[in-house]
């Protein structure tokens, strides 16, 4: 057979475009060492020939899964075959390692892995094997699967159709999930996580290191009816992640977030009162337990109620936001940034900058004397009332606000002023304001206050701190000092009725004390300083100067 045969066949119209692959033969030269020319003429069917051709695209450290099967099951078979190749691979002749990984590049499509399911769906169990969408977006659709391997990247996977989950074995570490989507109870539901990274991932409720699981079967979780649930997020990074309620470190009893980073993460719920995330525990039961946040930064994160360090157990629980926790540009609503229910403690020792909450926040407990705001609070706002240290405000407070001058009123219970009648404001307060009643030390104001604004019953029942350019209305600045000498230093401050001692002898006490000058407003008259700071002059309602 030579080229003349081909010319003759073509001229004779025997060139074809389709054949019966199982019966059509292709001539071959079969190797035969016994022959002088080394080959023996033979034939093979087209079908058998094609089966011998490797049409896959792969290299030493990667393989491409085309996902062009006729069914999702065929796609699944292709992915499974590629995974098996990856598991067995030794890229460049060496065992897989952090510097010698193997990557499965998966084309967009739906992959049915049900034929290969273990206890919790398909299981990715080989270290250093990455499964990555070819397009980089979440267009590789899988059903529920479990990652029980470490040191790998899972990118562009969407398990959310049919309520699929992406599950993580608690024994793993250093997994990167990038641009993945899953349903409720995903990305570490019910487990303690260590060293994982989550970028651009979206999940439903009870996800990203959450243990608020009420029912089986969720892997690795014992329902709370029999075992207290604890979750810890340690050395994990979350960037641009979104979840439903009870996520990012939420548990029934103990929740810890340690040495981690949260950047632009969001809890999305239709009802913000159900958010309960970013360090939440309690579930309104009588249990003790702890919410502990340390060494962690939260930047541009947002949640609803019961978040950023909150315990809603009723007895014996505690919330501690350590001094090395940093919250910047974070927004939440009620019961946040160090809050605990009656019978618990809450301490906010961290850095809080440009953070906003609605009510009951920033180191606060209700009805007890266990809320402490000892950290640094800068440009933080409590839209409504009750916060910034229920019992003790001993930290640094700069440009912080509780309520507003237009909507103020009510009971502020802010800056070391809790109900009932407790609270110490012993820190430093600069340009801070609380527009409702009871603020800046319900019991004692012994800190340094500069350019601060309060309302009635502000600046301490006892006031022995230093007050510069501060303003309040009635019963402020040592409003109950009967039998006591006012010990504070008041520089250009304004109070209302029954302020500065609320005692007939108060003004005399001030004069005798030789303290700095102050202003006082009483009924229709007001008093202001003039000349030497130890001289008190009063100006009545007719603007007539009266020297006392």
């Amino acid at each position, binding site marked *: 057979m030579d080229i003349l045969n081909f010319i003759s066949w073509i001229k004779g119209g025997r060139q074809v475009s389709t054949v019966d692959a199982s019966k059509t033969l292709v001539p071959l030269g079969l190797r035969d060492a016994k022959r002088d020319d080394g080959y023996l003429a033979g034939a093979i069917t087209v079908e058998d020939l094609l089966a011998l051709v490797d049409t896959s695209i792969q290299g030493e450290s990667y393989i491409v899964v085309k996902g062009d099967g006729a069914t999702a099951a065929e796609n699944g078979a292709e992915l499974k075959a590629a995974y098996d190749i990856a598991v067995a691979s030794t890229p460049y002749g060496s065992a897989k390692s952090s510097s010698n990984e193997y990557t499965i590049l998966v084309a967009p499509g739906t992959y049915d892995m049900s034929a290969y399911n273990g206890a919790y769906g398909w299981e990715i169990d080989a270290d250093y094997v990455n499964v990555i969408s070819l397009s980089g977006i979440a267009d590789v659709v899988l059903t529920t699967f479990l990652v029980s391997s470490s040191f790998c990247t899972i990118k562009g996977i969407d398990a959310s159709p049919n309520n699929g989950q992406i599950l993580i074995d608690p024994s793993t570490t250093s997994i990167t999930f990038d641009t993945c989507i899953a349903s409720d109870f995903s990305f570490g539901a019910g487990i303690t996580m260590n060293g994982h990274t989550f970028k651009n991932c979206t999940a439903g409720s009870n996800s990203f290191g959450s243990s608020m699981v009420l029912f089986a079967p969720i892997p690795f979780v014992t329902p709370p009816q029999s075992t207290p649930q604890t979750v810890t997020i340690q050395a994990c990074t979350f960037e641009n992640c979104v979840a439903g309620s009870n996520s990012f470190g939420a548990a029934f009893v103990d929740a810890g977030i340690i040495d981690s980073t949260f950047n632009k993460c969001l809890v999305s719920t239709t009802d913000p009162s159900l958010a309960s995330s970013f360090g939440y525990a309690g579930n309104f*039961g*009588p249990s*003790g337990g*702890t919410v*502990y946040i*340390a060494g962690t930064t939260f930047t541009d994160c947002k949640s609803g109620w019961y978040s950023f360090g909150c315990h809603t157990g*009723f*007895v*014996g629980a*505690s919330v*501690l936001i*350590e*001094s*090395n926790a940093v919250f910047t540009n974070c927004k939440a609503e009620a019961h946040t940034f160090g809050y605990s229910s*009656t*019978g618990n*403690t809450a*301490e906010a*020792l961290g850095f809080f900058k440009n953070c906003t909450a609605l009510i009951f926040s920033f180191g606060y*407990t209700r*009805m*007890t*004397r*266990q809320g*402490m705001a*000892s*950290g*640094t609070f800068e440009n933080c706002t409590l839209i409504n009332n009750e916060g910034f240290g229920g*019992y*003790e405000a*001993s*930290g*640094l407070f700069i440009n912080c606000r509780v309520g507003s001058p237009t909507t103020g009123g009510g009971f502020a219970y802010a800056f070391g002023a809790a109900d*009932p009648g*407790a609270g*110490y404001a*012993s*820190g*430093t307060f600069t340009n801070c304001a609380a527009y409702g009643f009871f603020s800046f030390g319900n019991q004692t104001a012994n*800190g*340094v206050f500069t350019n601060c604004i309060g309302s009635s019953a502000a600046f301490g029942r006892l006031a022995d*701190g*230093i007050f510069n350019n501060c303003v309040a209305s009635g019963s402020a600045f040592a409003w109950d000092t009967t039998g006591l000498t006012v010990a504070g*230093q008041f520089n250009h401050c304004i109070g209302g009725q029954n302020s500065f001692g609320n005692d007939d002898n108060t003004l005399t006490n001030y004069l005798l004390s*030789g*303290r*700095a000058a102050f202003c006082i407003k009483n009924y229709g008259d007001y008093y202001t300083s003039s000349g030497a700071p130890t001289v008190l002059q009063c100006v009545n309602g007719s603007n007539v100067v009266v020297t006392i």
Partner: protein
Amino acid sequence: MKTYRSSQEGVWTTPAHYPITEAETALFNSEDSADDAAKEALKETIAAFYATNPSEEISTEVVEQLNSIYNSHKPEVGEGETYELISATITLRGEKVSGLINCRPVILKEDGSKDLKTQMQIRF
């Protein structure tokens, strides 16, 4: 993990918690509306307990440990200044120690008034 507080050097407190009984726990868990009043009363009782700012008894050994930690982090103050502790919080978590000291140097004037210097925060 246990957290200790101080606003007076050498004096430490750690919150004591209400000794809830099994019966009270059951009451908390009750979903029977007939128990609502009793449940509210229990909450009030618990609140009253905490309103006394109760502290657990702290052993001498722990107090010494806390004082040692505190003193190792307490800052030096300048000449003519005294040191005023505002608040200290120390957490012992296994072998790990963490905490925060709020304090400020103070200058006592001849007229008896105080010049409070900028508040310092020592984190560890």
